[in-house]
């Protein structure tokens, strides 16, 4: 594996201009089309977007799990596991290669929305946990079991020793999700990629899982990349936020800035469209007009311009916006923004 020096040694994962295209019979779908973001060590980045924004496809590209007819066609995914500043470009590795498999699982753990689809129906929870433990440590059968039971206990599963020998379908939805987290964490990964892990759960169960992820993070110092469409969840757990629209990161900022001083009109509009649990009833919601365009009919210029409340004719539909650094650590792809002087000088 070729090692590349990182610019910023505190960055665990640096994604630049990542592109995943799907080559279908009807044409090419540019599901991810130049997405860039960083995740600092020990922090949580939330990737938010509506359906069709490419957030899950992007996560799969980072994990080397892009499914045909999709293919990563460009960009880099710099993975820098140690603080020596030497990184590997995961985008250059084949998804099934030995090198990738040594990273996916032991180094980068994953949890998905549907634990039932991700858990094997014909293997016990224990068998699947053991695989995860052994990907990291060469230990005896007995110790594998002990570590597996310990992992189940750590994610708050009652009677972990009994659960170890059960199957996924014998557990409730919340417990399955906990079991999946236990599997991902038994390998002690440096990065946990969570793709909508709480979307299918009830709110009280969701609250428990979010608390669990936060607790485990502060305990182990792992980095988290959390993909969700729920802005409430983002506000609960994120350190920083990347907002995606039609395959691109249109805004990235720390969580407070993203919610209270967003720079991109799309982020602003999304926040305003949410019904508030504090508000009185009867008001109309500030809906975003129109809908996410079909991937074959991507609008020219800024892809958001047909729905944008700040649309400026003659500008927005003519040029593709570049990322504008608004402040240190805060950028947005919008033609109406002026770069902050200090940040622009960097």
């Amino acid at each position, binding site marked *: 594996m070729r090692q590349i020096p990182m610019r910023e040694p505190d960055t665990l994962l640096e994604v630049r201009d990542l592109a995943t295209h799907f080559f279908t019979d009807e044409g090419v779908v540019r599901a991810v089309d130049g997405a860039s973001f960083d995740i600092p060590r020990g922090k949580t980045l939330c990737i938010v977007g509506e359906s069709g924004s490419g957030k899950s496809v992007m996560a799969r590209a980072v994990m080397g799990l892009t499914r045909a007819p999709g293919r990563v066609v460009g960009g880099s995914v710099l993975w820098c596991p140690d603080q020596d500043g030497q990184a590997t470009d995961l985008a250059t590795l084949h998804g099934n290669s030995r090198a990738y498999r040594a990273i996916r699982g032991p180094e980068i753990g994953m949890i998905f929305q549907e634990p039932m689809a991700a858990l094997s129906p014909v293997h016990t929870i224990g068998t699947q946990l053991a695989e995860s433990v052994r990907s990291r440590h060469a230990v005896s059968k007995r110790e594998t079991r002990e570590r597996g039971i310990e992992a189940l206990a750590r994610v708050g599963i009652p009677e972990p020793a009994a659960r170890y020998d059960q199957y996924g379908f014998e557990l409730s939805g919340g417990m399955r999700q906990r079991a999946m987290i236990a599997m991902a964490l038994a390998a002690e990964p440096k990065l946990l990629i969570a793709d909508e892990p709480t979307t299918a759960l009830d709110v009280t169960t969701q609250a428990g899982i979010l608390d669990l992820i936060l607790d485990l993070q502060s305990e182990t110092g792992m980095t988290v990349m959390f993909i969700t469409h729920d802005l409430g969840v983002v506000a609960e757990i994120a350190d920083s936020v990347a907002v995606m629209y039609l395959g691109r990161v249109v805004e990235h900022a720390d969580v407070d800035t993203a919610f209270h001083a967003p720079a991109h009109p799309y982020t602003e509009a999304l926040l305003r469209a949410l019904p508030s649990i504090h*508000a009185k009833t009867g008001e109309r919601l500030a809906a975003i007009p129109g809908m996410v365009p079909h991937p074959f009919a991507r609008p020219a210029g800024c892809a958001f311009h047909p729905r944008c409340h700040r649309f400026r004719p003659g500008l927005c539909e003519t040029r593709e916006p570049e990322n504008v650094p608004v402040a240190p650590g805060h950028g947005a792809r919008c033609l109406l923004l002026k770069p902050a002087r200090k940040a622009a000088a960097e």
Partner: protein
Amino acid sequence: MTEMLLEIRDLCKHYPLGGPGLLRRRAVPVVRAVDRVSFDIAEGETLSLVGESGCGKTTLGKTIMRAHPATSGEMRYRRADGSIVDLGRLDGAALKAAHREIRMIFQDPNGSLNPRLSVRDIVGEPLRVRRIAQGAALEKRVAELLEKVGLRPEYLHRYPHAFSGGERQRIGIARALALDPRLVVADEAVSALDVSIQAQTLNLLSDLKSEFGLTFLFIAHDLSVVRHISDRVAVMYVGRMVELAKTEALFTRPRHPYTEALMSSVPIPDPRLRRARKRIRLAGEVASPINSPSGCAFHPRCPYATEICVRDVPQLRPTGGGLAACHHAETLELAGVSHIAEGAE
């Protein structure tokens, strides 16, 4: 707002788990999906039913729609002509006539539209089946309905696959409106939609409500949506109604510990609140409707439970302007969502 449209009294829907069999003498276990639920819906109001999966809210909606028969209880519905009928006892033509006034919108816009039918056939089906309109008249009516829900009338001959999720939901809404209903049962009608489309759909529903004077039974799990759309809210837990109150009252001062726990679990899109918030962590999991706990079904998870909660089943009774089924409803000082917001300041 004064006249009742629908009165539900002691409604039960129990499912036996397997038949008694030839040799099996033991009593068959029963799933109490809906257990002695009573409430009213006044004409023109929006009543929301909230609760987590398995609480029986969908079963309740389906029972009103007579997708399956009720085990016991009454569903008194006041028809447009003023006559009162029990939906549970109607059948044949009488049921069909009553159900002309009660229509349903479903959660999954993909699963609830026949992919082989064009929009004209989907939206026009209730008109055709009831011989209300045919041919050109039917097309004209369907085109009108499409316009009402914000779709272009030219889309008449397209098939569901040609529409996005939000548009499909609008087709489902147009179909529900085809027979000029009075009561609409919306089962998680906006849950599968993206934020931007969800806001559009909620606005559409409230526009249609004021234009046609509709009454809504809104079944949902998202408390922010519920707060936005409802006049009153009913909270269900394991087949029973645990609280029923005006929206404002319920959200500012809940009377049932389960309502408080639900509210404290909702993620709120404001990062400043997460440090300020006190979250109630519920122990254990939702009880099973097959073998629900003794006394109050919520007692094993309730932070305020005492002896009486283990022993006696609490009845729904008037408390602070609403109804609550908790032995300690009068004495508990429970926190609503406004409390959370104040905590941040």
